[in-house]
């Protein structure tokens, strides 16, 4: 007869990581260690203007006085910041004008990741910026976007081509004083994407960046800045993978979004960094600061994330609702297996009148993992008639994992309406029997039930990526059960 559910779920959680290959690309890597010299080196390599170097140095000095946050429900050995290399770049020409110029080995890396850089992208109508380790390798579809006046390029390029824009917004949503990892990122960030949508423009295609950590012993510190002007719209997707390594690698990104009057930004992430093996060896430490500012009236920002990877996730994509009538949303699926730990959630800061926010968080824990939702809803005195709705569900698979919910509410405006719902459930045996009675294996039944559970969030992803995310959730649960 069927094995006990416990046994099965444990086997299911022993999944293989399909993106764990390493590419043989000639790299320029600086020696490990962090000092003013390191920062000067990075800035010089990138030929940066003086103001940016000074900004980095200020961030670095500030960082020196900070300590890693200890409040998350995460346990990991101390990170030695001197044992990381802060710059790794492919040796062949980093900035390209066409795909033909791309190093064939880099191209095959992206092919193996299943990133359809060429024809498929044309069909899907997606523009891609690919960041390998620290450097942006190629940005497709530049011309088509340029026709509409949309700027989509690497942030290093933007520093040279659009210095005023970068200078006007960089660090305005996430200042380097924000937190330990944001300060570190500001000091050493190497690349990332820059997007500017001019007033009245509905961006004609999905914009997308794939991040890949390839080099050994390096950290990745990318920085993304997206500005949606008045009456504009953009949908942006970020995907991430990394090779299988038995060392832990640090990823500390910062993403800043700014939406002006009636501007709208949809930011979607499918995060599949290497999570470590079933004994918890290796995997990415993911400490990320993502924040959007609804600066203008009736502006909208939404974060949709599907998090299946990383050994450790520390991430709270937030929205500051400053403009009156602005809207913020956070839709999240966080799946943890083996010994993964995730402490993720959001912050919704209501400042403007009639601002509304919505939080839908779906945690899935398997194996011996720990999955925490941490959310803050803050309604300032000025946020007359603000509204928030939060829903936090946890699904437990087996009984050695943990799910935790930490909701915080700070309400300073009596006309505000805040609703919060939370549930914790297991996959019931009678539901599994119903599925197997109809011919599905227990494994595909579980995958289907998990996808159903996550559906409300997946429905917010752009179509092509929803399909990808659905597969990813199923693969992440795949084990040795045939």
């Amino acid at each position, binding site marked *: 007869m*069927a094995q006990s559910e416990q046994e099965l779920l444990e086997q299911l959680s022993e999944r293989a990581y399909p993106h764990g290959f390493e590419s043989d690309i000639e790299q320029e890597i600086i020696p490990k260690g962090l000092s003013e010299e390191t920062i000067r080196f990075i800035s010089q390599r990138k030929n940066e203007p003086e103001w940016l170097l000074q900004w980095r140095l200020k961030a670095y000095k500030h960082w020196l006085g900070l300590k890693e946050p200890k409040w998350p429900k995460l346990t990991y050995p101390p990170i030695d910041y001197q044992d990381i290399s802060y710059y790794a770049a492919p040796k062949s020409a980093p900035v390209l004008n066409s795909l033909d110029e791309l190093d064939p080995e880099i191209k095959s890396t992206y092919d193996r990741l299943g990133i359809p850089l060429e024809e498929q992208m044309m069909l899907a109508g997606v523009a891609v910026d690919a960041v390998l380790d620290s450097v942006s390798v190629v940005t497709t579809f530049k011309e088509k976007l340029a026709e509409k006046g949309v700027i989509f390029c690497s942030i290093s390029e933007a520093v040279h081509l659009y210095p005023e824009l970068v200078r006007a917004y960089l660090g305005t949503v996430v200042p380097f004083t924000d937190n330990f990892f944001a300060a570190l990122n500001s000091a050493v960030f190497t690349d990332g994407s820059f997007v500017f949508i001019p007033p009245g423009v509905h961006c004609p295609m999905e914009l997308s960046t794939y991040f890949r950590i390839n080099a050994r012993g390096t950290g990745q510190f990318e920085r993304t800045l997206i500005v949606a002007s008045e009456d504009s719209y953009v949908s942006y997707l970020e995907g991430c993978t990394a090779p299988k390594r038995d060392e832990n690698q640090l990823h500390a990104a910062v993403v800043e979004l700014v939406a002006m009057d009636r501007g709208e930004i949809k930011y979607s992430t499918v995060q599949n960094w290497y999570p470590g093996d079933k004994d918890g060896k290796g995997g990415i430490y993911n400490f990320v600061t993502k924040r959007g500012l609804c600066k203008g009236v009736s502006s909208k920002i939404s974060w949709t994330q599907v998090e299946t990877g990383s050994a450790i996730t520390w991430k709270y994509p937030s929205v500051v609702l400053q403009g009156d009538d602005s809207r913020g949303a956070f839709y999240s699926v966080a799946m943890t297996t083996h010994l993964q730990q995730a402490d993720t959630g959001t912050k919704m800061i209501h400042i403007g009148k009639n601002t509304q926010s919505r939080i839908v968080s779906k945690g899935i824990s398997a194996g011996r993992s720990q999955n925490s939702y941490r959310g803050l809803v803050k309604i300032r005195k000025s946020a007359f008639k603000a509204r928030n709705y939060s829903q936090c569900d946890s699904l437990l698979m087996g009984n050695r994992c943990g799910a935790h919910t930490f909701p915080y509410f700070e309400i300073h405006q009596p006309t505000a309406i805040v609703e919060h719902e939370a549930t914790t459930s297991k996959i019931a045996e009678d539901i599994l*029997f119903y599925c197997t*009675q*109809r011919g599905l294996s227990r494994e595909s039944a579980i995958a*289907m039930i998990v996808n159903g559970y996550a*559906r409300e969030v997946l429905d917010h992803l752009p179509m092509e990526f929803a399909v990808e995310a659905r597969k990813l959730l199923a693969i992440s649960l795949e084990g040795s059960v045939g």
Partner: protein
Amino acid sequence: MLLEIENLRASIEGKEILKGINLNIPSGEVHAIMGPNGSGKSTLSSIIAGKDGYDISGSIRLDGQEILDWEPEIRSRAGIFLAFQYPVELPGVGLSSFLRACVNERRKYLGEPELDASAFLALMREKAAMVELSQELIRRPVNQGFSGGEKKRNEIFQMAMLEPRMAILDETDSGLDIDALRIVAEGVNKLRHAQRSMLVITHYQRLLEYIIPDRVHVLMDGAIVMSGDRTLALTLEEKGYDWIRAEQEVSS
């Protein structure tokens, strides 16, 4: 013989629920099981379908093959279908994608090619019409927000989609109004086939006016205490189960 059950005993948590059941259903026949609440009807159906968690002895054979050690999904693919007394909801799992996966599993098992999307959709429309299940319901997650009657009709719809060899209907009639009952019964009658057998479990003889059984068995306290033709159902309705209890006492 399509289904043969021999001296089937089952207990759960030390409590014996089925106490030596013998039942043979030839191909193409419809058998009914009647019995009071708690007599073991649902337990019998679950065990034929392969539900885990019972201590079982005896034998269940499908087309002569012992199936007691088969997983439920293998039994399903081999043609056993159970219309549940209490169908569960599958939040967020679309009925059509769910059924497509199920139908293709069965086809794979039978060595038939998988159905492509358009062939599958056409099949779904046809079968849904048979039990008057609206297109709107088909687009919803499995049983989510369905009324009691819609859930039961959905079970018959799934049976029609999967074209089983051996269909077990566990109190599909209970909770249905007369119109819904007629729709379900007509659906079931359309599915009667020389290569398909059915085991219809019911409380009331009412259903058996629409679905005419070849044999009627009475299950009481975990054992089949009487079998007969369709007139047994009428006698039971008239005289009640106490009559059988009395008969049994006389004979023992």
